[in-house]
């Protein structure tokens, strides 16, 4: 049902197309600007009585200490979950995780599951894998429903339909809802409350019918064997409590050691993501509670490249990410191109590092283009609630991309930089004096003057370089 990111072009190509979409540019500038302002107000509010920077340090510390002890923490989590009556499964990659979920669903003889919004199940293509097994996976988050009904792709971590406006959503509901359940009313308008009511009625019958629910988790507490889902709409609460069977697919980096560790995380996450002091629904469950909620609880702990990322000395900090999307909302590149250009369920600055870290630099041209999809302005690092130094990771990944391509026939770019390295390692090799003049312009031309001059004038070359002037005038004294 939902589209796929497989076969997406490299970032500059995809961005070119997105930039030409005036409606998209307008929607994104408006939406990200609004969320940015809300977040900033709350950060300022925290700073009135305490210290946002202290909170960030504390949140980063909770994640970092768990990641540095990941093997032990995961075994603790497994033991706690098992003691609480949950069944723990381990999956190395997407295929293993999808097969586990499908086999559990099939063992209950169902042809549908209801889903809580989950980035990880999108990362592994769970819906498509279940569909191939004859099992329909219904997204129940409003925005994910819009994306799913529209055969579309998510373009934002938190607000996956951020690229759609309400007129488009009305069209999608009218055209598509009827084929998969309760249709939208004929008199549907594009009023947000009316659209939400249509989605509510459509989803309600799915919630009440489904025997199996599928979720991810925002956090997994090792000490208590507790999974946590943070959401706004309450659809997650429905999926987590109504079905008889609950399957949660959880990335191994979601573990926090103790219940107390949730304290800073639950303060940082809503403020950084939706710009709220507190999100409306926080669900926690620790295995099976007799007579209350799902009586069969499965937890699939998934790697899918995370141990590769953990082995990356600079990049491992990306595993602290709590998927708040503050970095998307402040990113000037994301604001212009939108999320689809990144070719992944993880767009924006975090996607530009997470995708290469999970998949490995040098494995794929599209993935290799992502670390370059940034002007390195640093706005992402400034807002990250868990202090991920995204610009530094981007620069390190660029070096890994270049290194992965060394040894073959050198590219024009590689030759240019090798030449520049020789010229710039000794001022005498530059020919000193006047000959230095204009080297910047020559370098610019070598990298493609047309790419510069198609929209920007080049500055005129000066009569003489600074060093020529200094030499001629003895530093202006003559």
């Amino acid at each position, binding site marked *: 049902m939902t589209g796929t990111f497989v076969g997406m072009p490299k970032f500059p190509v995809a961005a070119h197309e997105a930039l030409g979409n005036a409606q998209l540019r307008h929607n994104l500038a408006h939406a990200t600007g609004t969320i940015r302002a809300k977040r900033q107000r709350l950060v300022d509010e925290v700073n009135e009585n305490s210290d946002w920077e202290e909170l960030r340090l504390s949140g980063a510390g909770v994640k970092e200490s768990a990641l540095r002890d990941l093997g032990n923490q995961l075994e603790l989590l497994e033991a706690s979950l098992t003691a609480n009556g949950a069944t723990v499964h381990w999956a190395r990659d997407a295929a293993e995780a999808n097969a586990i979920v499908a086999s559990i669903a099939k063992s209950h003889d169902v042809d549908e599951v209801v889903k809580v919004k989950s980035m990880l199940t999108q990362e592994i293509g769970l819906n498509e894998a279940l569909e191939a097994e004859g099992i329909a996976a219904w997204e129940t988050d409003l925005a994910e429903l819009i994306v799913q009904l529209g055969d579309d792709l998510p373009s934002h971590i938190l607000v996956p339909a951020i690229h759609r406006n309400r007129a488009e959503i009305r069209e999608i509901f009218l055209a598509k809802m009827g084929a998969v359940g309760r249709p939208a009313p004929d008199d549907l308008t594009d009023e947000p409350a009316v659209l939400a009511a249509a989605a509510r009625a459509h989803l309600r019958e799915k919630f009440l019918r489904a025997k199996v629910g599928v979720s991810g988790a925002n956090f997994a507490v090792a000490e208590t064997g507790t999974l946590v889902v943070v959401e706004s709409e309450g659809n997650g609460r429905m999926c987590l409590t109504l079905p008889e069977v609950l399957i949660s697919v959880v990335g191994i980096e979601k573990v926090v050691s103790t219940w107390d560790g949730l304290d800073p995380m639950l303060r940082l996450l809503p403020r950084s993501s939706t710009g709220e002091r507190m999100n409306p629904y926080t669900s926690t469950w620790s295995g099976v509670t007799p007579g209350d909620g799902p009586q069969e609880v499965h937890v699939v702990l998934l790697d899918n490249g995370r141990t590769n990322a953990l082995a990356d000395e600079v990049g491992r900090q990306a595993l602290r990410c709590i998927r708040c999307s503050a970095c998307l909302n402040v990113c000037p590149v994301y604001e212009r191109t939108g999320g689809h250009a990144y070719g992944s369920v993880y767009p924006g600055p975090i996607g530009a590092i997470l995708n290469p870290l999970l998949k490995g630099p040098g494995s794929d041209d599209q993935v290799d283009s992502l670390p*370059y*999809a940034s*002007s*390195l302005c640093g706005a992402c690092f400034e807002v990250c609630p868990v202090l991920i130094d995204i610009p530094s990771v981007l620069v390190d990944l660029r070096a890994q991309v270049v290194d992965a391509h060394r040894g073959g026939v050198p590219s024009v770019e590689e030759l240019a930089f090798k030449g520049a390295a020789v010229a710039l390692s000794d001022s005498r090799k530059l020919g000193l004096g006047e000959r230095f003049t204009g080297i910047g312009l020559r370098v610019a031309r070598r990298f493609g003057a047309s790419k510069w001059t198609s929209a920007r004038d080049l500055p005129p*070359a000066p009569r003489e370089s*600074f060093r020529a002037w200094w030499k001629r005038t003895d530093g202006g004294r003559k």
Partner: protein
Amino acid sequence: MRVALMVTCINDALYPGTGQAVVTLLRRLGVDVEFPASQTCCAQPMVNTGYLDEAVPVVRNFVDAFAGYDAVVTPSGSCAGCVRHQHSIVARRSGDAALATAVAETSPKVYELSEFLVDVLGVTDVGAYYPHTVTYHPTCHSLRMLGVGERPRRLLEKVRGITLLELEGADQCCGFGGTFAVKNADTSVAMGADKARQVRDTGAEVLVAGDNSCLTHIGGLLSREQSGVRSVHLAEILASTEGAVLGVTR
């Protein structure tokens, strides 16, 4: 105090007037600045494009050129950021302990111009005169890598004759980003077009910033649009006096 000017490769080749303005300004403030002629480039283009091996000889040249100075002043937040935050990465890559030591010695002595004026010399009124309406764009690396904060603004506020106009969305990137400007030219121009519009909306005659790389990008767009807005480096405004107003013809 022995003070060296790190003019940067872009200023050396394209904006000698900015280097000359720093010399004029520092001499006026009693600093006999030297220009180590063996300097070339900070290596940022290599580092930020991923060519770390190619950056090694450039960083080696840098530490040789600036060894022995008490302070190194540069009219570029971006280049200062590279030296202070990235030279150690290059040194580690080289595996050369001597280079790492030299980098650790040199890097902390490198100051962006406004830092040097405010923090080292302790001045905000540099005796400048600039009778124009000006809007200030804080460049990303000076703002977020170095944390220069309000220093450039404090210097500008003390300039006689100047009218400072607020730039909307000032802290958002202009889209230059080094090789980003050509590798992702479409996105770079889209970002720059918004910045250029915001600059025009201020009604200022002059756009000022502490980095000529960013000004080349925004100025290139403003020039293509025949907006009539000049882009001028901070150093040129601070060096201007009643006798010689700089950056008028750029």
